[in-house]
């Protein structure tokens, strides 16, 4: 196995996550956090909530994008070194959810940055979020040409 193969193996085994709450009602946030807890323990998959975009591989976004946080979201995305993936979680992150028509709401995450995986739910269940990260790894695999 060459070094590149080893690195690719590492990439699939160690997705570090940065979570950004755009404008969520906390429902999805708390479920994202719940994934870290003993019952779900995503560290099994090497997933760490690293909190710093510069260290992260996967950006998990919950909540609607509004006019103030859209630049923040873009900034965070830009500060992640590649290869990277984005997961939008919850109805709000997907489309704006119940708040789509509120005056300060821009809409789903994909209006600002490209989204690789959509995790539906209001809020999304922790299992569903785990599925999302696994799916994101598939996306990364495809991007790397390994699939």
């Amino acid at each position, binding site marked *: 196995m060459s070094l590149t193969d080893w690195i690719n193996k590492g990439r699939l085994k160690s997705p570090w996550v940065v979570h950004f709450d755009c404008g969520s009602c906390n429902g999805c946030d708390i479920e994202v956090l719940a994934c870290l807890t003993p019952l779900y323990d995503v560290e099994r998959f090497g997933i760490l909530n690293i909190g710093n975009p510069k260290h992260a591989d996967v950006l998990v976004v919950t909540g609607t994008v*509004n*006019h*103030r946080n859209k630049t923040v979201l873009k900034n965070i995305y830009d500060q992640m070194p590649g290869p990277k993936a984005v997961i939008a979680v919850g109805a709000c992150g997907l489309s704006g959810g119940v708040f789509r*028509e*509120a*005056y*300060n*709401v*821009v809409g789903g995450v994909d209006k600002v940055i490209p989204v690789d995986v959509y995790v539906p739910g209001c809020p999304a269940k922790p299992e569903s979020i785990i599925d999302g990260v696994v799916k994101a790894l598939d996306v990364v695999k495809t991007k790397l040409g390994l699939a």
Partner: protein
Amino acid sequence: MNDVITRITMDELPGLAQKMFGEGQRLATLTAVDLGDGTLDLLYHFDKDLVLSHYRLTVPKDAVAPSISGVYFAALLVENEIKDQFGLNFSGLALDFGGHLYLADEVQNAPFCKLSLTKKA
């Protein structure tokens, strides 16, 4: 509504704030309501030992209301919020966010006013 709402004028407001503060009343919050005729209702809710008392101040939209944030620091946020949402100006705000407490530049000013029924920018 069961509670009593007392009407006050703009001149009485600072004195009222002082009086309530002196009586140990907690400022619960302010509520602004657009009456649709170019005036706003400002409701001041005070609380002491779980008993609320309310004061209603009706002001024209283009008026400048005296801020009570000098007396009640807690009024700071809500007054800025009203400034954001209704475009009502306050004089003597302890910290003035200039109508950008919540709103970015993209959003039209005073989205809560009825005459400027705004949808998304």
